[in-house]
């Protein structure tokens, strides 16, 4: 791996090596660009991943201090942990379950479709599904998504059997083992799924796609990637003309380093990305970089989420095999007869014993709670994920009262559910319970949202500069050579898990950046 000089201002600096940053790095390297990829976390591997929920959490999760506020229950139960995302080479692709769904056409036109809903900042994306289709296709091939490109679907585990039985009884028509970025056959130099059941803890077989195991090695092979783990960017710098000139970061030894750049692409996930732009405020940009609209950090979305767990008379042993073993998509469309706009997916989920105790009912105790734990092997579970409403007040801000170990203000995540979110969640809980009751459940439980694993929208795309932070290429409106390259770009959240769309946007953004560099406009 090359080491580009700190003063080499011909490199593209990418901050964050997850779905966005890792993919962007590989795509740019393939096109011959020199890339310095700065990742705050350390580099793990299938050898170092552990099949142990708490140990893995400490190994992979972003644990730098954060604060929370707002009426969401996460602020009460997990006040210091608004999100369960990663600080590791590969970012949250090390941890994700692999669900790879395309957005629906109307979801790019959320404002036009849903209307002007009070208390939201709904906005149409500045691009359409049609424009993204060729990139979605490439992303699905890159990631090896099952049920695309001739790749067979995965076999369903016991947890899926329960979901499918209930779904069928209820009359649901779209229930199968999903479109998953997990090899059902050996492919792309990686083995096929062994149904290990620790997807969230890093895939030890390599069957699950991640930028760590798929994109970064390919980028390294080009000889154009300078990956620097344990490099935590603390500031993005610019010149008098307002163009970004490089970044300052803390290296593994804690020493301050400065790397010059031709362009900077920020992919720190939706909490750190806006935080970094805000921390980079200067006399020229007193409100932070790319923030003339005031939208940096705003419109934070975490998807409507919740889970339903159910206990049955007989054993399920849902922990055996893939965490997200199947899906019901019947509720994903926009059907306002249900009393809300937007839709949701129903996806199986399993937690091990330790995490079930922590997340089934945070704060819960007593014989009712203990009864569920006693029946752990007779439990099935699903996660509900749907479109939540963007709101101006749901936002990331700098908390001046709390500093991280570098002396920088930590991010505060403020969130209040919109009425639409609450109605959707209620409906989804009801339907989840109905599925399990139809399959013979003795008792069900409505589990509240976990610390957010989907974090979106805080530097959103917009057609007009006043409504967002970046354009249809993820290029910030204010600064030509500063890009947003992660889920912060999402104008709205859709009902679908975001990773496929993040990878898709990164493939497309790489093309744009390469073209701009060739034309010398960047």
């Amino acid at each position, binding site marked *: 791996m090359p080491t580009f000089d700190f003063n080499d201002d011909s490199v593209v600096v990418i901050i964050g090596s997850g779905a966005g940053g890792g993919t962007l790095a590989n795509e740019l390297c393939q096109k011959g660009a020199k890339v310095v990829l700065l990742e705050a976390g350390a580099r793990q591997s299938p050898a170092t991943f552990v099949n142990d929920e708490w140990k893995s959490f400490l190994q992979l999760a972003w644990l730098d201090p954060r604060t929370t506020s707002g009426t969401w229950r996460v602020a009460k139960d997990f006040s210091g942990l608004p999100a369960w995302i990663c600080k590791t080479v590969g970012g949250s692709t090390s941890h994700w379950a692999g669900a790879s769904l395309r957005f629906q056409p109307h979801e790019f036109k959320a404002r036009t479709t849903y209307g002007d809903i009070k208390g939201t900042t709904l906005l149409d994306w500045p691009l359409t599904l049609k424009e993204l289709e060729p990139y979605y296709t490439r992303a699905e091939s890159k990631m090896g998504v099952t049920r695309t490109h001739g790749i067979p679907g995965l076999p369903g585990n016991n947890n899926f059997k329960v979901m*499918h039985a209930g779904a069928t009884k209820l009359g649901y028509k779209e*229930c199968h083992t999903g479109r998953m970025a997990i090899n059902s056959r050996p492919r792309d130099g990686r083995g*096929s*799924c062994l149904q290990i*059941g620790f997807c969230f803890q890093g895939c030890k077989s390599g069957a699950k796609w991640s930028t760590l195991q798929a994109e970064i090695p390919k980028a390294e092979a080009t000889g154009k990637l300078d990956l620097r783990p344990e490099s935590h960017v603390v500031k993005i710098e610019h010149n008098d003309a307002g163009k970004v000139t490089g970044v300052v970061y803390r290296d593994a030894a804690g020493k301050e380093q400065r790397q010059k750049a031709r362009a900077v692409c920020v992919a720190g996930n939706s909490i750190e990305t806006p935080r970094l732009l805000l921390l980079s405020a200067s006399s020229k940009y007193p409100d932070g970089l790319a923030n003339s609209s005031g939208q940096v950090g705003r419109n934070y979305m975490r998807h409507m989420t919740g889970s339903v767990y159910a206990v049955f008379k*007989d054993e399920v*042993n849902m922990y055996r095999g893939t965490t997200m073993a199947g899906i019901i998509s019947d509720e994903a469309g926009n059907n306002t007869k249900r009393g809300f706009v937007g839709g949701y997916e129903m996806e199986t989920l399993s937690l091990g014993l*330790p995490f079930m105790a922590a997340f089934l009912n945070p704060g819960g105790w007593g014989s009712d709670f*203990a009864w569920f*734990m006693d029946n752990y092997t007779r439990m099935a579970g699903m996660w509900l994920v749907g479109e939540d409403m963007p709101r101006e007040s749901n936002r990331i801000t700098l908390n001046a009262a709390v500093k991280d170990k570098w002396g920088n203000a930590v991010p505060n995540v403020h969130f209040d559910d919109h009425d639409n979110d609450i109605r959707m969640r209620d409906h989804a809980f009801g339907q989840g319970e109905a599925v399990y009751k139809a399959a013979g459940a003795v008792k069900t439980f409505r589990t509240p949202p976990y610390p957010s694993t989907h974090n979106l929208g805080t530097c959103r795309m917009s057609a007009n500069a006043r409504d967002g932070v970046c354009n249809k290429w993820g290029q910030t409106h204010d600064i030509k050579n500063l890009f947003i390259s992660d889920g912060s770009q999402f104008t709205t959240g859709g009902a679908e898990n975001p990773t496929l769309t993040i990878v898709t946007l990164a493939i497309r953004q790489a093309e744009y950046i390469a073209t701009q560099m060739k034309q010398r406009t960047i």
Partner: protein
Amino acid sequence: MKVIAIIGAAPTSSACTEESGEVPRLDLPLTRREFLQGSGVLTGTLAVGSVLATLAPSRSWAVELRTLSAAEGETLMQMGRVLYPHAKLSDAVYALLAKDLDADAGKSADTLKQLRDGVAALDKSAGGSFAKAPPAKQLEIVKAIEGQAFFSTVRGKCITSLYDNDMSYTTFGYPGASWDKGGYITRGFQDLKWLPDPPAAASPPSGR
């Protein structure tokens, strides 16, 4: 057969400075009696026929506390049983709760005070001994302090102490790590028989 002489061989290791084989009496800070004094030891026996009893090398167990007393440890164990009542979960696991709280008490004077005061308050509410009060009374007392810092400390610790250890895994039927056994692809990941198998379109056969 080659014979390697041991008797009479002179020690060549430079780390061994003793002229004779005698171990000198060292001035250790604690004798065994001093160690046990001022701290607690929780002991118990795994129930005959329990799944743990078949796996453990011995049915007796002991947990040493370094800061809290045995009585305080017992009380915290009992509080754990009220918070998370599992008839089938051995005392040995609730003793881990006491052990983990004891470790925290050893690291922080504030935590030690909170636990000591909390335990004392439980005993006071029980009119003497919380540990000896009937279960219904214990539940009433614990309910009354819900939301207090002491309650939160103990309840929060239960989540890891009671559910993240091998004994609990065995008790609740969670096998833990699976990679080292080759995952579940050949170990029953789809062995559920009390519901119909989904059709192939929904759940294709595995490639193996």
